[in-house]
């Protein structure tokens, strides 16, 4: 549970679920790969074409605000995004991420630092370690509280779907 990847730096506040995954697609039955084609479509139309597997997003305050649509998480994950380090995340988006075993790391210190030094850091790689709760970029390291308890169990199971599968199997 350690990722190193290129960064996409999005300091804007309140990037919402409509920008991440537009409402007009929410009731179309799409595969995760098809959802990935619309990732961040209303925020940065070129994103879905240019994103590479293992990329990490650095985001501003209240990322993922708005709708409960889980596709906002699924489309980013399917697009290959490995993790998001942000100032803060909206509640349902955060929950959906845990339930889909997609790492969101609220770490305002790291995010602010990257925003402030974006011109020198933009081509650097960032490393996120979920086990010891560290973020490393160039010569700087930041700490964040790692997941614990039931949230960690769901994450470890590979998401709520797998977690529930196991629980149901145990019952039988």
């Amino acid at each position, binding site marked *: 549970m350690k990722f190193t990847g290129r960064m996409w730096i999005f300091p804007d506040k309140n990037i919402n679920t409509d920008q991440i995954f537009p409402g007009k697609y*929410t009731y179309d039955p799409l595969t995760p790969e098809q959802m990935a084609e619309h990732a961040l479509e209303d925020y940065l139309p070129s994103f879905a074409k240019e994103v590479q597997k293992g990329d990490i997003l650095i985001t501003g305050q209240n990322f993922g*605000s708005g709708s409960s649509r889980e596709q906002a998480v699924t489309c980013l994950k399917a697009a290959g995004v490995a993790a998001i380090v942000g100032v803060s995340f909206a509640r349902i988006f955060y*929950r959906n991420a845990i339930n889909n075993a997609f790492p969101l790391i609220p770490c305002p210190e790291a995010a602010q630092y990257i925003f402030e030094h974006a011109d020198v850091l933009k081509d650097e790689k960032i490393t996120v370690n979920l086990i010891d709760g560290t973020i490393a970029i160039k010569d700087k390291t930041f700490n964040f509280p790692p997941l614990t308890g039931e949230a960690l169990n769901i994450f470890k199971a590979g998401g709520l*779907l797998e977690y529930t599968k196991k629980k149901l199997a145990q019952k039988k």
Partner: protein
Amino acid sequence: MAQTLIQKIISKVTGIKDPEEGSIVFVEPHRILTHDNSAAIIGKFKSMGATKVWDPEKIFIALDHAVPPPDEKKAANHTKIRKFVNEQGIKYFYDCGVGICHQVLAQEGHVIPGVVIFGSDSHTTTHGALGAAGIPIGRTEAASIWAIGQTWLRIPESIKISLSGKMPANVFAKDVILTIIGQMRSDGASYKAVEFHGAATKDFSISERLTMCNMVAEMDGKAGMFQADEVTERYLKGRALDLYQKVLPDKDATYIKSEEFHLDEMVPVVAKPHNVDNVSPIAELPDTEVDVGLLGTCTNGRLDDLAAAARILKGKKIKRGVRLLVYPASQAVLLEGMKEGIIQTLVEAGGELAVPACGPCLGAYGGTLAPGETAISSANRNFKGRMGCKEDTRIFLGSPATVAASVLEGRITEPPKEVFK
């Protein structure tokens, strides 16, 4: 330890005596609400290896987000849901046309004080209007609850919002909650429960409370709640599907934050594009022409909302070239509105009446904006593209009265005070 309302409710449903803020507990809900997204949830449910739902009497499904279905894919979603409902013997299924899930859930007596309702829709906060904890969740969680009957919950800290005074004649619950969000911002209640307190709460009808709690989702709240009182009891009489006991917060409970709002000082406001906390008094807006008004949605599509608009539009015609979309929140509202002549007034004024459903609120079908258009809407969200088109479109949010006054003039206009005296 003194407890907040959400602590009290969680204590009641879990049996945990002293639920500590920040701790994670497992909760079996009184109801789990889903809508057209049930089609996707069924897929997830099956891939979990589940075959039977945990309790067919606790599952609530209403079709509202694409009604009537605009294309064959969405129609097929509905077919899939109907089939599942029959196979599983799901008791509470409301087919196309009955109304918007949140309105139907409350109106049909499913929501009672002291219960937990999970919903795979972000505006599940609405149900706090009746002293319940309405908590929004995602689709995988909904599938998991269908399968195992419970999900995890972090017990939130609570924010206390005290309301005092009286609303001026042309100020409505929507103006109050928009003013609050404008001050507290769109992440002002992130991960927190919001409780409405104060002497003024007794003057809020259930419809107005539903509007307020609905919009708590726009502060990113986990729940938004009024305490059950005589108003709640009157509404639930002959309606509540289950017996209930009022659950109230302890008087000396501690809140992470307390805010006070004086209703007398409030004025009609709108949320400007493209975020709900971008709030401005209408009086301070530059001249803003509108192309379309949306009257309806789970926020403001009830009888009193349509009635307020009708009072302004009675005997008048909306401005030529401007449209007014009328989407009653439920069939019951529509029928009542027909009986009272409200629908007649709205249609005579030039309103386009539609089937009770979400409609243009989410931009998936029906009434989408054209590039360059501006809308004034009684809904809860004004994100760019929310009404189906992002090219140069703008959505302003206001009360139903503001929507009516604005389509009459063709520009965003304060509701006339004299009409409501």
